[in-house]
C-alpha cells in the first residue's frame, strides 16, 4: 500500500511504564523490514516515573525526517491512555488525524491526591472524535488484564493498529519482529495480545 502522505506522521502516546517505547520500536522495525525509512523520537526522561510520554514516528518511502514531528502534523495517533490523546492532539492534531485510543485511564498524581479531577471517559472520547477524522476506541488494558498482566496492553494496541488498515503492517511482520527483538518465550503471549487487540477493532 502506498502512503497517504509522505512523511506519514504517527504519535504513540501514553504514560511512563505503559511500554510506549517498545511499541514504537516494534512498529518501526516492522516498517523498516518493509523497506520504509523511519525516524523515531522518544520522550525518555519521564519514561518510568508516571509522566506523559510520546514517541514520534516518521514514515517515509524515501527520506529520513527529524525525530520530532512539527506541530499540527500528526496524521495518526495511537494513545495508550485516553486523556493523553487530548494532550497530544492539542499541539499536534489536524482535521485529518486518525486516532486509536485505549479507553482505560491511568490517574495522574494530582488526581490521586484530589487536587485535580479525571474527566468522564465518554466526554474525552467525544472530544477526540470531534478532533479526528476517524476514531477507534478499545479497552486494551482489559484485554491485557484478562491475560493476567497489564504489560500486554501495548501489544494489544499494536494488534488493534494493524486492524485499522492505516499502515502497511501485518501479523506476520509483527511475529518476525517479536522474534528478532524479544526473548523467544515471550512470543506466544505477545501474539495473543496482538490478536485480541485486532479482534477488538474488527468487532467495533
Amino acid at each position, binding site marked *: 500500500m502506498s502512503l497517504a502522505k509522505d512523511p506519514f506522521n504517527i504519535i504513540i502516546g501514553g504514560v511512563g*511504564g505503559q511500554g510506549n517505547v517498545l511499541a*514504537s*520500536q516494534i512498529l*518501526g*522495525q516492522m516498517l*523498516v523490514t518493509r523497506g520504509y*525509512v*523511519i*525516524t*523515531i*523520537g*522518544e*520522550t*525518555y*526522561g*519521564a519514561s*518510568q*516515573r*508516571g*509522566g*506523559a510520554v510520546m514517541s514520534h514516528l516518521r514514515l517515509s518511502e524515501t527520506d*529520513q*525526517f*527529524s*525525530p*520530532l*514531528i*512539527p*506541530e*499540527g*502534523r500528526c496524521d495518526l495517533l495511537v494513545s495508550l491512555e485516553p*486523556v493523553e490523546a*487530548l*494532550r497530544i*492532539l*492539542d*499541539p499536534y*492534531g*489536524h*482535521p485529518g488525524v486518525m486516532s486509536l485510543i485505549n479507553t482505560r485511564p*491511568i*490517574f*495522574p*498524581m*494530582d*488526581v*490521586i*491526591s*484530589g487536587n*485535580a*479531577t*479525571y474527566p468522564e471517559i465518554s466526554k474525552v472520547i467525544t*472530544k477526540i472524535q*470531534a*478532533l479526528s477524522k476517524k476514531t477507534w476506541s478499545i479497552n486494551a*488494558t482489559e484485554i491485557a*488484564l484478562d491475560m493476567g498482566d*497489564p504489560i500486554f496492553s501495548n501489544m494489544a494496541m499494536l494488534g488493534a493498529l494493524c486492524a485499522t488498515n492505516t499502515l502497511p503492517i501485518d501479523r506476520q511482520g509483527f511475529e518476525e519482529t517479536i522474534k*528478532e*527483538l524479544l526473548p523467544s518465550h515471550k512470543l506466544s503471549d505477545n501474539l495473543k495480545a496482538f490478536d485480541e487487540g485486532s479482534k477488538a477493532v474488527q468487532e467495533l
Partner: protein
Amino acid sequence: MSLIAQDAPGKTILLMGNEAIARGALEAGVKVCAAYPGNPSSEIIGSLSSAAETMDLHVEWSVNEKVAMEVVAAASFAGLRGLCSMKQNGLNVASDFLLNLNLSGTQAGLVIVVADDPGGISSTNEEDSRIFAKIGDLPLLEPATFQEAKDMTRWAFSLSEDLGLPVMVRSVTRVSHARGNVRLDALPRPAPKARFDVSRPRLAFPPFPNHKALHQKLDRARTLVESSPYNIYRGPDKPELLLITSGSGWMYSLEAVMNLGVQDRVGLLKLSTTWPLPANLVLNHLKQAETILFVEEVDPFIENNVKELFAQHCMEIGLKRFYGKAAGTMPSAGEISPEIVSVALQGLLKVSYKPRPEEYTKKAHEAAAELVPARALGFCAGCPHRATYWAIKRALTLDGREGFVLGDIGCYGLGWGPSGFFQMKTIHAMGSGAGLAAGFGQFERFGLSQPVLAVCGDSTFYHAAMPALVNARYNGSNFVLLLLDNSATAMTGFQPHPGTGRTATGKEAPVLDLKVICEALGAKVHVTDPFDLAATTDAMLKFLQDREGVKVLILKRECALVRSKKQKKLYQVEVNHERCLGETCGCNRLCTRVFKCPGLYWDRVTGKAGIDEAICTGCGVCAEICPASAIRKEVA
C-alpha cells in the same frame, strides 16, 4: 542475540542513535569499552555489553567516568582501540584526566562519546560539553543522523590514530535517544595483541613542549577536517540566508525550510567537524551570503567560533548580519525544535506558515484546557523511595529540630517534590548530598542546631560519595547518611554496579558490601527495610539523636521495576470498604492525598479508597499507613 553485532553488511536495520554509535565502534574494531551510566548515553555501553561475547570485547561499567576514561586510555596505550561514553556531567568528572591525556597523546584509536541533554530532560543541569574540545585542543565530531552516528564513530577511531589524540564525539538526546534506519557495514578482523611499548612512556609532563606539540596536532586536524564528507551544504550558490547548523539542528532545519517552501532562498551548511572548524569551507560559504543564522543546541559554540573566524577574515569576506543565540533569534537555553527553527526563519525571511486551521487549534486547545489534568512525575508504584521519604518525614517531625535532607541526582532526586513529600532540600552533582553533609555536620560550633541528613543511592555511593564519607570521618563531621540501596542504577536503566555481584556483561563479580565499606570507614552502620516503616523510622530517629560522628543507615529494598520483572506481587492488597471510613475518617484521605502511590485511587462514587489492580505492585506499604487499618495485605 545482539542487535548491533549482526555480521550482515548491507542490511538496513532500525537502530537507536546510541546503538548506531556502538555499531560504529564495532565496525572500527573497538576492543575495550567503559562508561558510567548516564542518560542520554547509557545504551551505548548497554548495547556493547550485549556484543561483548560474540565480538570478544572487554566492556565494563566503571565506578565513575574518570576511571572509565583511564581504563580506555590504558587500552589505547596497549595498542587496542577503546571507547568511553558519558553524559555531559560525566565529562566534568573525567575532565581532569582528559586535560592531561591530550598532552601525553594516545596510540590506538580512542573515542570519547559525550551525549548532551539539551533542556536537562534527565539531568540536574544543562551543559554544552563541546567547550571541552576547545579547552583540550581535541577534534570534535557531531553526527546529525543515525547513519552518521555509526559512520562518524567508525571514522573517529582512525582520525584518533592519525593524530595521536583522543577524538570527542558529541551527541544530543534527539540523536542518542531517537531511532532510524542504519545500513550496516562489515565487522573487522581480529585485533592486535595488547602490548605497552615501555620505550615510549605516555607522560602529560612536561606541559610546555607537550602543549606546543598538541597545537601542531590540532593544526593537522584543521587540514584533515576540510575534506570531511560529513560537512554538507544544501541550497543555492548565493543564498539570501545561510543557516549553519550541527547535530539535531540539521533535520529540524531541513524540515523547516521544506515546510516554509524557501529552498531557493536558504542555504543549509551542516557542520559535523565542529572543532577545529573547517575554516576554508566556512569562509567560502560566508562569502556567498550576508545574513547568517546559527541553529545549534545548548551554547552558541559554532556561532562564537564562526564569529571568531569572521573577525580574522572580515576584510576578505565583507560585512555580515549574524542571527542566533547572541541576537536572541534562537533561545539561549532549552532544547530546540522544528518550530523554533521555523519561527526564526519566518521572522528573518518575512514569510508566514500555518500548519492547520485556526479553528482546529482553538478547539484542540479548549479540549485540553478543559479536560486534561497535569501529570506530575513521581515515584513508581511500589517504589522503596516513597516509603523511605515517608519514614524521613515522620522521623524529622518526631525529632522536631527542623532537620533537613541533602540529596543528589538519581530517582530519589524526586524527593524534592510531592512524591517525596518535599523532603529533599539540595540537589547538585553525584554524591553532593554527602559532601554538603560533611560540611553542614561541622557547623554545630557556629550555632547550627538542626540535624543533618544526606541521601544517596547505592551506585552513586561508589561513584562519588565515598570520598565525602572519608572526609567526614577524618574531619569529625556529624550527620546521618541514608544509603538507598535498591540494588540497581535504576534511573538510567538498571545497570549493575560494584554492589550487585554482576558485571556489565553479566559475569559474576565480587560484591563490594556497602555495610562493610561504611564500617571500615568508621561509620556507625545499621541496615533496615524501608517497607518496614516503623523499624525504619525508629532507626532514623535513633541516629538523628546520636550527636557523634558519621552514621549510615542502609535502606535495603530492590527497585520495584527490577523486582516486578522477576516475581509477581509480594502482597495482594485490598481496601476493606467496611473499615474505610472515607471522607468521615479523620485521616483526610491520608493514603491518596498525602501518600499518593499511583496504585491507589479515591473512588468518588463510594467516597472510599481503592486499589488500581493494573498498577499496584503489592508492596503493602499503604497498609501500614492507613490509620483505620482498612487497607489489608495478604501474602500473594
